[in-house]
């Protein structure tokens, strides 16, 4: 049995029945990483020794009759999430060598659930990007076509899960950074409601938009990782102190009577025809499963992009002011204090500098009202669009991305073109909604297409169940072992 072809839930079953051990599964995945990751480049750091120790402990605990939701299951963590004793770079030279003295809350949750941590996955620098091409280290390749991007910013996590180099993974999603790479790599990616996941120990990009998300090869796998990591954390004042439902039990596959909204503004000129066809076919399938399809309008959709690209850089410029080389990270000494700070900050890559500049400008005296102030007001309209829509429907269905994976290097020099990649995902971050991407087919070049499902505040169980019901109708096609593995 090739253990790396199992899904997370299949492995959990095999571990519980005694058919295999965590050490065997962990070793199989580590071997697979050695064989495969030279090509895919999804991991920045592989914590093999630590992983095998954790696997041994998991097997010991199971031998003692213990069990926990992820006991002995190997997972990967995006390198923007702090891991105690393991270098955490956020894909940046300015954090190269930074070894956090503590685990992020979500990593503590993973460990408490018994998970084995395989290593840290590649990301665009400070999660700013849609392709991992902004990583200071290397670009992760799409498993279906290595000349194409895996998406981003959580492209390392998505590609690792897609190729069986991890059974599940954590990412972060500030404007689409979990859903878009999930779409490009043919896996399931969830961006929960803001406040559902703790941000404590997650390197901050844009604090009112950042949220940890989860990846799995199947909806059930993605849900299992989400179930283990969601929940209130008193250390994050924006984390919501609300009960965490049993999301796994909510995957019944029965979605009869639910109302699915299809917003006209998401089927616009510029969207790839094959993407549109696949998504419309998926929506037709949802109708066959007993849902009611409702045409809706989210009238301010076109403004989400300019709003996002004022608010996110403004928040980033404030958050990234802390990188001055004084308390942590590398320091480049200059003539005096200010000179040293400037020389140290030259370690930021081009996209990060661009966003710091944009945010600094949008917040600067004389321009604050014209840019940042207007963006905050327009954000109200976008948020209200969703609240209005969710009075009529339970779920909104759209494409995750207007295209399938693009070629490495194709748009990296055109920031505006790159930002347009996020046009369908970032309205979720600006509002109080949650969203996921589930595979819904392939284009004629064999590249995966993602269906985005958006839910109202804290309604993750609903969108996960709709995705689960849909997946049951196509899972045979999507999960067959492919030549790209």
């Amino acid at each position, binding site marked *: 049995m090739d253990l790396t072809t199992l899904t997370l839930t299949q492995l959990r079953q095999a571990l519980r029945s005694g058919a295999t051990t965590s050490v065997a599964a962990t070793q199989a995945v580590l071997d697979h990483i050695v064989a495969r990751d030279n090509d895919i480049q999804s991991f920045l750091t592989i914590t093999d020794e630590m992983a095998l120790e954790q696997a041994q402990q998991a097997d010991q605990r199971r031998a003692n009759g213990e069990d926990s939701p992820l006991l002995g299951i190997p997972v990967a963590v995006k390198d923007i999430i702090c891991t105690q004793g393991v270098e955490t770079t956020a894909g940046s030279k300015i954090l190269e060598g930074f070894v956090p003295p503590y685990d992020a809350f979500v990593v503590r949750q993973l460990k408490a659930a018994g998970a084995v941590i395989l290593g840290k996955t590649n990301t665009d620098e400070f999660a700013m990007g849609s392709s991992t091409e902004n990583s200071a280290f290397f670009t992760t390749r799409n498993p279906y076509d290595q000349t194409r991007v895996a998406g981003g910013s959580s492209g390392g996590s998505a590609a690792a899960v897609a190729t069986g180099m991890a059974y599940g993974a954590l990412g972060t999603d500030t404007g689409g950074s979990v859903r878009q790479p999930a779409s490009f790599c043919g896996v399931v990616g969830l961006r929960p409601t803001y406040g559902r996941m703790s941000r404590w120990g997650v390197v901050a990009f844009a604090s*009112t938009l950042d949220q940890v998300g989860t990846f799995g090869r199947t909806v059930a796998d993605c849900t299992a990782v989400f179930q283990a990591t969601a929940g209130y954390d008193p250390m994050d004042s924006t984390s919501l102190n609300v009960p965490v439902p049993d999301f796994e039990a909510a995957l019944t596959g029965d979605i009869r009577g639910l109302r699915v909204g299809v917003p006209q503004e998401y089927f616009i000129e510029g969207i790839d025809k094959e993407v549109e066809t696949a998504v419309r076919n998926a929506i037709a399938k949802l109708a066959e499963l007993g849902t009611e399809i409702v045409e809706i309008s989210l009238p301010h959709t076109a403004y989400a992009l300019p709003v996002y690209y004022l608010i996110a850089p403004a928040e980033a410029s404030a958050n990234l002011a802390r990188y001055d080389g004084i308390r942590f990270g590398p320091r480049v000494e200059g003539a005096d*204090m200010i000179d040293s700070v400037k020389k140290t900050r030259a370690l930021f890559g081009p996209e990060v*500098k661009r966003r710091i500049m*944009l945010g600094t400008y949008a917040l600067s005296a004389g321009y604050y009202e014209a840019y940042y102030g*207007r963006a905050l007001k*327009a954000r*109200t309209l976008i948020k209200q669009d969703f609240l209005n829509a969710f009075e009529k429907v339970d779920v909104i269905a759209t494409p995750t991305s207007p295209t399938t994976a693009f070629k490495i290097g194709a748009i990296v020099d055109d920031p505006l073109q790159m930002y347009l990649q996020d046009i369908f995902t970032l309205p979720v971050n600006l509002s*109080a909604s949650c969203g996921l991407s589930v595979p819904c087919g392939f284009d004629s070049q064999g590249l995966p297409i993602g269906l985005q499902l958006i839910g109202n505040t804290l309604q993750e169980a609903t969108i996960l169940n709709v995705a689960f019901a849909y997946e049951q109708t196509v899972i045979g096609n999507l999960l067959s072992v492919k030549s790209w593995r």
Partner: protein
Amino acid sequence: MSLTRSDVEKIAQLARLELTEAEVALYQSQLSAILDYATRLNELNLEGISPTAHAVTQQNVWREDVAEPSLPMDAVLLNAPKQANNQFVAQTVLDEG
């Protein structure tokens, strides 16, 4: 919205970024293009609309004022580029005179 060269230099100064000549030119054109795109927001009538700073509104969060253990000193200083006597070492900021 076109940024001038001196606009870009001023922003860089505010953000404590040292830019090369090439970067100044590049950011001047790229930031101008992005800000141009942002002027789309002028199409909206935002009269009387209140701003949304946060997706999910939360009031102030309080906790009991109870002392809890902090990170040990060696963990706090673990990543310090320079340290001495349990302190971060930085360059002089104020003149001695």
